[in-house]
């Protein structure tokens, strides 16, 4: 047994990167995720509309945060603002009773808003509801039952694909390296971009079908609504898949062996699940950690899928997640292409850039 233990230790020590990952990453992940793990909603963004908008807004105290008052706007405007994710709650005045609209697709802010309203009512029984002298009518939009599955399923579709997609593609290049076929690819007249896209496209097609199936099953079993435009969802999903699979290829291209690739892939999965707003609301994540959320494709896919499926958000309101997904895609493609260039045309990078050594000649030269 002793011989076995010694051998195993020697092997572990040889793979420094794996050892570093085993020791450093758990600490790092715990710290990062610890700051992220929070359901606490400290502020609820509110917009107010109608003739008494300003007056009514003035009565709302913390945790409510009035971001906009519009005296000349009506309920339709307020509802559009909620749909487009501009606020979590809307206060509509002008009717017999003030109307409170709550975005039910933001589960924790919505619950916090309901709780805060109830508390105000208790604290000021003389002015029930705290808004003027009348009790407001409260309507929860998009997810009236505040059902967890309604807000989880759209994002979970993304999680499933991150798991499948990143891990499978992360093995692609390492496998070529380990089986020695990468050197063969290097001498073939392939461009780095060809290799990158060639690695992604097959999985991309499979993953797209996979996503459609997961979505249909989710809708059928859990009764999740799909209220928006499927084309907008589809476009977002394709961008998201492209980035997700691209990250896998990038991981693969920086890994020495399949073990490292899998480890790296898993290390990107955990933050995606916990920091993307799927479980903890983005606004509840400590700002020092929140910036990581904005580097994760799942964050944007979450916004798109929830927006389209639950709130029927139009693409014009979703331009931000689309642009960021596209940017992430560009970064991933560039990174992977540069890595491939290192393998596929060494004389064009690294050593050869200092000392031009190879003079390829034409057939007749």
């Amino acid at each position, binding site marked *: 047994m002793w011989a076995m233990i010694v051998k195993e230790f020697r092997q572990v020590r040889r793979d420094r990167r794996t050892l570093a990952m085993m020791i450093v990453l758990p600490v790092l992940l715990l710290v990062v995720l610890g700051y992220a793990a929070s359901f606490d909603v400290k502020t609820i963004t509110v917009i107010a509309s109608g003739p008494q908008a300003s007056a009514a807004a003035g009565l709302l105290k913390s945790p409510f945060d009035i971001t906009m008052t519009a005296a000349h706007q009506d309920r339709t405007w307020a509802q559009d603002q909620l749909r487009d994710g501009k606020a979590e709650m809307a206060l509509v005045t002008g009717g017999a009773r003030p109307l409170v609209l709550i975005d039910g697709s933001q589960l924790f802010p919505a619950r916090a808003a309901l709780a805060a309203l109830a508390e105000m009512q208790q604290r000021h029984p003389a002015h029930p509801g705290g808004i003027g002298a009348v009790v407001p009518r409260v309507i929860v939009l998009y997810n009236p039952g505040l059902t967890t599955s309604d807000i989880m399923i759209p994002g979970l579709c993304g999680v499933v694909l991150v798991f499948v997609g990143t891990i499978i593609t992360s093995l692609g290049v390492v496998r070529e390296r380990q089986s020695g076929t990468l050197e063969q690819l290097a001498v073939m007249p392939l461009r780095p971009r060809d290799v990158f896209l060639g690695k992604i496209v097959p999985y991309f097609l499979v993953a797209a079908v996979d996503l459609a199936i997961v979505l249909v099953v989710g809708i059928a079993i859990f009764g999740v609504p799909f209220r928006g435009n499927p084309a907008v969802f589809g476009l977002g999903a394709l961008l998201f898949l492209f980035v997700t699979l691209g990250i896998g290829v990038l991981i693969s291209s920086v890994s020495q062996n399949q073990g490292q690739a899998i480890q790296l892939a898993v290390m990107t999965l955990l933050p995606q699940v916990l920091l993307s707003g799927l479980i903890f609301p983005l606004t509840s994540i400590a700002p020092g950690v929140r910036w990581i959320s904005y580097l994760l494709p799942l964050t944007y896919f979450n916004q798109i899928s929830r927006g389209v499926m639950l709130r029927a958000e139009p693409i014009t309101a979703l331009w931000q997640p689309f642009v960021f997904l596209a940017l992430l895609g560009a970064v991933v493609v560039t990174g992977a292409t540069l890595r491939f260039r290192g393998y596929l045309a060494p004389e064009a990078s690294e050593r050869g850039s200092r000392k031009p050594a190879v003079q390829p000649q034409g*057939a007749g030269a």
Partner: protein
Amino acid sequence: MTSQDARIAAAARDGAGLPARGGAGLPAWGGTQLRVAFGKTVALDGVTLSVPAGQVSAVVGGDGAGKSTLLRCLVGVLAPDSGTVTRPVKERTGYLPASSGIYPDLTVAENLDFRAKGYGMSARDARARAAEYLDRAGLTPAAGRLAGQLSGGMRQKLAVISAMLHQPELLVLDEPTTGVDPVSRSGLWWLIARAATEGCAIVLATTYLDEAERCASVLVLDAGTALAAGTPEQIVAAMPGSLRAVAARPPGDAAARSWRRAGRWRVWDPHSGGGDITPDLQDAVIVAAISRQQPAGSAA
């Protein structure tokens, strides 16, 4: 060996009837004064190799001599620190890496198909060429088998025809016959020699000196430097001193200049002429290695 094989083998050595690159005044493919260092280890130190068309050139040497490094420089997967490489464009270069470059989870036919498409061959050309090379290699019955399930010899044959499928001008083969049984070896040689008769410039690395002896030119590498270069005859002729065969290993100084071969001991005498053995390439290479370790002055 059939009469056709003999003709092909002869042509491979002499480049008979073909406009050899070097001979016709055209520059041969190859590398000049190549130097490669990995950190502090110098893998290649000022090595020059010329690969004329229509011939098979061999790079021989023990493990770690720098054979693979030289070939990798030649095809461009490794950029030398200094020196120049002259080779055709990627589309006209073929390479068999030491790892064989075959996908074990693809069938024989699928491996060839990938290679053909990767080199931009039309579907019809790809099919015809694959059929022809499968036939040459005797692999037609195995076309539908997974490459990973082939025997070592069959897999090497597949690797070699994959490398030459697009009929490159320069074909670089890294130990195509290592670990292959004698029958498969002769089959592989037939494939290689035939490609040479078709005008291809071929360079291969080998640890087998009997294979090198069949080649038109030989470069002997040791620890990253060239020990000897030329035709096998030139290398043998350039061997200094003489050889004799004895029954037992001689004592003293001579022990370091002796080696076992064919049941007897050969002893190299760096200074005297005569000797009772006519040296071949293997003897010449061993002598070159010995004289490098102990220069003639000290060996006396």
